[in-house]
């Protein structure tokens, strides 16, 4: 792996560690209160804190996961390097776009 990809993945991991811990705690709390749209959205709608927290989460994940998948494809499949890089970039965009859309869906849009 190139040095810059390595550093990007480790830095995004450092960011993700506390975010994931917080997310696990939030999941447990949310499940306890019952998973309905009303329950979730009443807490997230209009909240800047949620938007920043989960927006940052999505961006970090969009960096971290594709670099990991790229390494796995390189080591465990016979696919060509350029194809793997293209797939990793595409995956990053999918995570970023779908993720930020989801963050907007629960924090911004009134439905």
């Amino acid at each position, binding site marked *: 792996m190139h040095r810059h990809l390595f550093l990007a993945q480790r830095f995004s991991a450092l960011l*993700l560690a506390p975010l*994931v811990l917080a997310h696990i705690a939030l999941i*447990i709390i949310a*499940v306890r209160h019952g*998973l309905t749209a009303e329950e979730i959205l009443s807490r997230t709608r209009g909240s800047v804190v949620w938007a920043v927290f989960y927006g940052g989460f999505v961006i970090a994940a969009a960096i971290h996961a594709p670099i990991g998948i790229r390494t796995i494809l390189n080591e465990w499949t016979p696919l060509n390097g350029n194809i793997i890089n293209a797939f990793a970039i595409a995956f990053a965009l999918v995570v970023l776009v779908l993720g930020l859309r989801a963050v907007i*869906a629960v924090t911004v849009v009134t439905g």
Partner: protein
Amino acid sequence: MNGLRTHRSYVAFLGHRLSGIALAIFLPIHFIVLGLALSGAENLDRMLAFTDLALVKFAEWGLVMLLSIHLFFGVRVLMLELTKWPNRTDPRSDWIVPSVIAALAIGVVFLLQL
């Protein structure tokens, strides 16, 4: 499999990698489901009612476990790569079993909330 793939730090590598693959597959699906809130709370509710199924609850528990395992094994990797090792020939293998126990504990707490 011979002894080269059954010792603790290899199993930790495998656990981290396999949980990462599972999470990478799950992540876009997760975002799509949340994005259903865009089309109104009703659609999200319909999806969330689906999550009442036992099989889905089991899958949720599985994902919480995978996320926890990936987190704790990942923090161990960060420790290995950012700090000096207390024991030169041991890649912090004493972190491995506690990581699994912590993930199991989170799994149990999650189950208790269901």
